[in-house]
């Protein structure tokens, strides 16, 4: 990113985090300066799909009953979230979490990037139109902030469900090695303990995301 581009956008204090799980996970899953993905494309998609579902569960917009996704009573003002809720309610039947992850994973990365761009966190990278749209963080420190939030969530004694869910989803989609660089030893065990206390719906989304990412590693076609 050029210094000019950085100057054009909002100053750092406004970028204190969108408070959305999928946005935070997007930032962790991409390099804070170059914006290059740190995971395989499929894992990014599955992780963000899981984060979006978790976001909606925490907002009370969807719920998980007997392993399937159902619409809840609350609505969302966010366009991306509203779109997914619309998809869930439009279906004549309920589908398992795994199916939603599969389908959402195809489109969610670009949508979350768009949401982050609107909020002023990302700008489109120039050039290489044949490689598909790539996004670059406006401010590397802000892009790195979710990692710091995870550190404090795991360290905190009073339980931060959103931070723990974010950490668990990041580990599930293959970012464990990246997080381990910044976390004190023994964090993984503390995270597993904390995740065991999460709402069952959130735990279901986390384990299904992990299974889908593992299956993608084992899959023969990319």
């Amino acid at each position, binding site marked *: 990113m050029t210094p000019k581009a950085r100057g054009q956008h909002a100053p750092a204090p406004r970028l204190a985090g969108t408070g959305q799980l999928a946005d935070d996970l997007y930032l962790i899953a991409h390099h804070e300066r170059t914006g290059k*993905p*740190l*995971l*395989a494309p*499929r*894992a990014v998609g599955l992780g963000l799909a899981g984060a979006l579902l978790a976001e909606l*569960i*925490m907002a*009370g917009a969807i*719920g998980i*009953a007997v392993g399937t996704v*159902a*619409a*809840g*009573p*609350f609505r969302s003002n966010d366009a991306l979230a509203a779109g997914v809720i619309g*998809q869930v309610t*439009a*279906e*004549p*039947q*309920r*589908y*398992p979490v*795994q*199916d939603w992850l*599969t*389908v959402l994973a*195809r489109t969610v990365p670009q949508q979350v990037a768009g949401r982050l761009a609107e909020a002023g966190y990302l700008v489109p990278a120039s050039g290489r139109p044949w490689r598909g749209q790539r996004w670059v963080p406006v401010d590397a420190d802000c892009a790195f902030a979710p990692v710091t939030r995870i550190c404090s969530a795991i360290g905190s*004694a*009073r*339980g931060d*469900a959103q931070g723990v869910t974010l950490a668990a989803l990041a580990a599930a*989609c*293959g970012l*464990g*090695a*990246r997080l381990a660089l910044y976390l004190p030893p023994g964090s993984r065990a503390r995270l597993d303990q*904390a995740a065991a*206390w*999460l*709402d069952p*719906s959130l735990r279901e989304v986390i*384990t*299904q995301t*992990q*299974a*889908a*990412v*593992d*299956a*993608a*590693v*084992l*899959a*023969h*076609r*990319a």
Partner: protein
Amino acid sequence: MTRPTYPIRLYPRSRLMSRTQAATARPGAMSRELARDRLGVPAVLFFVLAGVAPLTVAAGVIPIAYATTGLTGIPATFLVIAVILAIFSAGYVAMTRYIRNAGAFYAFISAGLGRVTGVAAALVALLAYSFLQIGLYGAFGPNAQAEAAAHLGVHAPWWAWALGAWALVAVLGLLRVDITGKVLGVLLTCELIVIVAQAAAGLARPAGGHLSFATLSPADLTSVGFGTFGVLAVVAVLGFVGFEQAPVLAEEAKRPRRTVPAATYTALGMIAVVYAGVSWAMAAHNGTGHVVAAAGRLGPGLLFGLAGSAFLSQAAQWLFLTSLFAAALAFHNAVWRYMFALGRENVLPAALGRTGGNNIPKTASLVQSATALAVITAYAIGGWAPMENLFFWFGTSGGLGIMILLAATSVAVIAFFARDPRGENPWRRLFAPALAALLLAGIVVLAVQHYAILLGIAPGDPAAWALPTSYAVVAAIGLGWGVVLKARRPQVYATVGLGAHAVTGQAAPAAPAEGELR
């Protein structure tokens, strides 16, 4: 820490149909999305055949099998084994629909015969696929050496070429590169064209001007006693390895119930016809009485010389090298997949189940590369013959391991459906697997008894007992480890055989939903 709760009030039941009810519902956008990118029979068939690497078998395995065993019943054996494997597949593909991690034998065996046996089967499979993978360097080395000396004027020992291929496989493995479908498809098509052309030309020019059908006769199966069939069968099964992979794609297939069986049976039929045809052509072209001597003299040249065309021979020789390399990479990926799945289950050290940047399972890939490097180095220092003592010994030992797993899987299928028939007919759940189990177990016993003939060595040679015994050793270790897991780490034990689904603990895929994927 208190458990947070969220105010979820679900819609009235009337709006929420179950999956089974949904089959009659109007398919929505979701079912269209789920059906997108699903694989049909041709795609699955292509995937299976590419994994089989036909030229590796036609130019590598068959000539050296003629030479080493001195037996001429190879063409007939391919046909018999195809029938046995088809019988095996009846129960195998039926069970595929009800388990996770399908395509890994130990998943079937864990679900059918219990997880302790499953751990033993996992280690046997790991050893068998490792044998198969490392053995391929023993063929790549000397054949690359010969090609380079003849055409490039480069004179390097076989192990230098083997190490070159090893290094490339190691790097591609770390980059998580599978040779893509298109590249593999072109190679596969070229391989098949070359094999069929060579076979047809060989049959058109039989020895003495008279086409002999002797090697296709069942009488040739047991020419030197009944036991020799076991030896021939191991060679033939080695040729078919890869056919078992179709269920891997079950969850990605358009209609798993039809796509996977159709691809499996078609692959078996095609492989049988091609291998029986080309090995028959070798015998007919050289004369049934002379094919063993000719194979000893010519090696892979037994195939290349069939047509008497310099162009076809040269094309076959280059394709043989690419086929060997593609097979080495494919088996490298198969081995790390096993290790990764077992690492995820915590059956093997968890480090094997961890991924680094870009979700690449570096540790599992590096462990297999290190093993291969150690073996190639040992053969180079020991001065052992790469083609016979590495390629053929390791290859056939891998084939024996696969045979053991096929037999155990058949028994597992019977046990699995004995607890709950799940609406499968008696042929699929009982008679076919029972027949397959008897035949395959019989073959394993015969092969182990006559292992010296298989390897082409004196009966007292240590290799004749050491190689088959290696399976007994890892199986015993696996059984012991399985018992320890059961007693000490029940949460790990509970997920044996689930692979990627170890984390969810869900033993069965969602109910088969054929109607949704139109």
